[in-house]
């Protein structure tokens, strides 16, 4: 009778993730090393973009994870609101800084690529702008967590903020489309297209995406463990002061 809710027990969660973490980290490192080395050194230069095309191996996976991290926080917040499992709230909290860093990586690599290709570091393009707004949402979310002392109150408030923020982030995403025409090319990858990128670039990219996904999961597990342990320690200290 294995149910996913068993992992809502912090002890069970720590036990399981402890066993998984080394595997996840090693796998993530391996796939990232393979993907990046393959991508950087063993793929040809693009005939128009030259070697700048290779930034795709950092840009696309990090952008993907920046959005998926927010989605994961949304799911975790919903679970907290509905079932009130503390691990879920802590996992959402743990994912936020990782997602914010992914957003920064995507923006920074995009800027580095855009300078030689578009001739500008930054343009008020819908995609770029909505990513910047997503980053602001991450900042607000983390700031709210940091500002509230009571853990349960903070978890409640941040999960409602995450829900409302998701709606508005989505609205902004389509509002900026309306506001300015895009410079950014269409989606490089999508599931419903038969062929996305030329195969030479595509295979190492898959490795990089897998590496980023594994890295994200490993980091969230690790950070959630840290949060659980920190909270236990606070509880112990409080008990000691009382007793």
């Amino acid at each position, binding site marked *: 009778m294995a149910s996913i809710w068993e992992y809502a027990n912090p002890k069970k969660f720590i036990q399981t993730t402890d066993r998984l973490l080394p595997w996840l980290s090693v796998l993530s490192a391996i796939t990232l090393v393979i993907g990046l080395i393959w991508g950087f050194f063993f793929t040809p230069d693009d005939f128009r973009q030259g070697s700048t095309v290779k930034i795709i191996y950092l840009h696309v996976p990090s952008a993907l994870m920046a959005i998926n991290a927010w989605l994961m926080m949304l799911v975790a917040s919903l679970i907290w609101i509905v079932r009130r499992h503390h691990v879920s709230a802590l996992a959402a909290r743990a994912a936020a800084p990782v997602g914010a860093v992914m957003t920064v990586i995507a923006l920074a690599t995009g800027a580095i690529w855009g300078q030689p290709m578009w001739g500008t570091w930054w343009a008020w393009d819908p995609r770029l702008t909505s990513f910047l*707004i997503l980053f*602001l949402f991450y900042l607000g979310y983390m*700031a709210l967590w940091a500002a509230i002392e009571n853990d349960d*109150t903070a978890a409640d*408030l941040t999960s409602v*903020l995450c829900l*409302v923020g998701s709606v*508005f982030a989505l609205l*902004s995403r389509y*509002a900026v489309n309306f506001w300015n025409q895009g410079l950014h090319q269409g989606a490089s990858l999508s599931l419903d297209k038969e062929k996305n990128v030329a195969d030479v670039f595509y295979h190492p990219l898959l490795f990089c995406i897998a590496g980023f996904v594994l890295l994200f999961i490993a980091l969230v597990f690790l950070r959630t463990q840290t949060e659980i342990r920190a909270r236990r320690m606070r509880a112990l200290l409080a008990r000691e002061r009382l007793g």
Partner: protein
Amino acid sequence: MRALLIRDIRLAVRAGGGFGLGLAFFLIVVVLVPFGVGPDSGLLARIAPGILWLGALLSCLLSLDRIFALDWEDGSLDLLATAPLPMEALVSVKALAHWLATGVPLVLASPLFALLLSLPPEGYLPLLVSLALGTPALSVIGTFGAALTVGLKRGGLLLSLLVLPLYVPTLIFGAEVARRGAEGLETGVPLAMLAGITFGAIALLPFASAAVLRVNLR
């Protein structure tokens, strides 16, 4: 409900309530812009719709933390929460009072300020309509932010960080209506979008605001 609304508006209008501060802030923003970008009236006319929207948004933001803070400090918020009035109605009334006390004066004053920024004559009506339609959304979204930060000391800065990203869609469509109006273009589509955001926010956000307010009053 009506009693609460009247009480809130009275508190806002009387001395020390901060009524008029928002308007004064709006005026200062409008006065400062030409110092920043130069007095060229062609340029001013071009950026006027955006500046007016930004000014209205910022002065709306300025008064947000007053929505709940004073009631929280003297304990009347607890009394209101235990009153037979549902929490959703309470936050809706609070938002309405905020809009009547800050939003409406901003809307009414905007043509005057548009004059200062030499907005073309055909832009006045779209500006007025877009502000009248958009500022309620600003108040409702702001009430949500104020409910989130009500228990915090020095919540003001955090409040702006939380609320400003939520204002993005309203600002985009509102400023777009005003801009298109000033350039004599069709304004129907962004106007419909703006109305959608406003009414959607009025219909749904009070539930979220009430939920976080309950958490904060626990």
